[in-house]
């Protein structure tokens, strides 16, 4: 008996440490970003870092460290991706969960999930050789390496996440909800829009947030397809260089322990705080709505 009790306890602690380790890793990453990032502000003023749109650390003359242009670029590309991916993803999830025949679903779902297996460098390549020229032709531009290209590619990349999570949420809505709606005389469309989707709201929000996280942190695809110019973007047709692309491009050559080195950590910390903020916001939204139901 004592032996069994000991095994139970050991397993409990084993699983606890597994769960705790991911928390520790998260805290470790944030701590490292913060400790290194703060050192950048010995030479850069906070005002310059957040309010200047001029980022040029390895300059011909005086280096400058303003992240406003790349912050706007990241937000612009992510916003564009979500505008495209949310209606498509939630629509596809609703179709799969509620409308499609079981046989159709058995074919469609694995194919959609396969989309997540396409490596980001391949998606970026498609952006350069196919989507870019296509965008240039449709909108009459000289080239298609711009924020729109990145947004479309990121929308495609975040679709599998959004569809899979949202479909699970919609399927989790109890059948009794639907039956009650039908028995009150509502048709399938009304039932979907007024009953099923609101009931699955928190799960759908979670799906969108996960998709957004995928888009905001993606590096290789945007690095290849958006043109990487340092100028402040004025719209979806301007080339942009996102925060992730900046870190990826510059960390390889930066001398260790310089202001430039620490400033890249500061950029990483800002990126981390943005996704942390989005996640916290999503959790609150989802909770508030759940209580109302």
């Amino acid at each position, binding site marked *: 008996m004592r032996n069994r009790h000991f095994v139970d306890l050991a397993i409990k602690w084993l699983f606890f440490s597994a769960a705790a380790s991911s928390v520790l890793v998260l805290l470790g990453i944030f701590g490292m970003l913060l400790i290194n990032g703060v050192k950048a502000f010995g030479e850069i003023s906070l005002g310059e870092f957040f309010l200047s749109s001029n980022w040029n650390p390895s300059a011909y003359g005086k280096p400058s460290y303003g992240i406003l242009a790349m912050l706007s670029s990241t937000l612009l590309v992510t916003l564009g991706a979500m505008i495209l991916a949310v209606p498509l993803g939630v629509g596809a999830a609703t179709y799969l969960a509620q409308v499609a025949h079981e046989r159709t679903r058995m074919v469609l779902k694995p194919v959609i999930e396969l989309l997540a297996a396409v490596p980001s460098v391949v998606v970026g390549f498609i952006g350069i050789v196919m989507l870019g020229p296509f965008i*240039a032709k449709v909108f009459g531009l000289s080239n298609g390496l711009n924020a729109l290209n990145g947004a479309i590619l990121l929308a495609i990349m975040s679709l599998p996440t959004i569809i899979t999570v949202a479909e699970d949420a919609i399927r989790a809505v109890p059948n009794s909800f639907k039956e009650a709606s039908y028995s009150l005389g509502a048709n399938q469309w009304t039932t979907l829009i007024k009953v099923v989707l609101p009931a699955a709201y928190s799960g759908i929000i979670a799906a969108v947030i996960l998709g957004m996280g995928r888009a905001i942190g993606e590096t290789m695809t945007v690095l290849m397809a958006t043109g990487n110019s340092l100028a402040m973007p004025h719209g979806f047709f301007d080339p942009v260089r996102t925060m992730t692309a900046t870190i990826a491009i510059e960390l390889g050559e930066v001398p260790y322990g310089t202001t430039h080195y620490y400033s890249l950590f500061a950029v990483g910390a800002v990126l981390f705080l943005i996704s942390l903020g989005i996640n916290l916001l999503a959790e609150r939204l989802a909770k508030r709505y759940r209580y109302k139901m």
Partner: protein
Amino acid sequence: MFKYIHILLLASALFAFACNPNHQHVENILIKGSDTEVNLALALAETYMSTDPDVSIAVTGGGSGAGIAALINGKTSIANASRPMKQEEIALAKERSVQPLASVLGMDAIAIVVHPQCPVQNLSLQQLGAIYRGDIQNWKTLGGPDAEISLYGRQSNSGTFVYFRDSIVRAEYAPEVKQMNGTAQIVEAIKSDVHGIGYVGVGYILEKNGAQPTGIKVLSISRSDRQPAFLPTEVQNIESGDYPIIRPLYQYTNGQPKGRLQQYLQYCLSPAGQALVKVNGYFPVSAQYQLQNEQALNFQYAKSTLR
């Protein structure tokens, strides 16, 4: 347990043999640096090793800055660099009692490429600088169509990026320059961008048989508005020094090289070595730098390569 002991003994004997540095006098040479030069350095090293079994040469890339940092830290015998060392780098090296000594391995010409439909044929260095500074923004100023110039360039970890900025632009790049992830992407982008302009190494765009590139147009470049313009795709323009955008590819060592290291560097400059430079799409050391090499490496160029 005991049946494994002879295997263990054999393995440890082999290990001891492999670790014994005296069983043969193999000399190790480490080369690190510029990605532009890495393929050329590999070809030179492999050919040299096949003639001299007592030397082992390891070549790695990482960029000019990485190679120079390794030389300063004493981690490499030769640092390859497609740009000269900066003042700060030289100061840091001296601080750690490293005496960087430059020799020139070969020359790399940079071509200015546009879309085949672009009507402009030649540019002067001043015009090129103004384009990349953002002072000239429309093709109309240059005699082309009324359209905005779409600028393509490399990323800041590239030696070409630094060379082009410091020697041609001589100021900050315009923020509108699209920073492409490598030469291949610049060429791909120019092929589909009617209003694009970009800079790439000549070795990259010439076909293996020396044929002219397809899908892009190479511009002739002149030193100033009043001087004639030259095409970089004609080898004689580069060998004569008429084509203006040409940079030396450096090999830095710590002080005057001795022994095998000196022999290897002399091999690189020999007619056989310079022939390999040519095969790889670069150009033999120009007369201007031959004197520098002779002093640095205590080396005499063969009469035939001097003009």
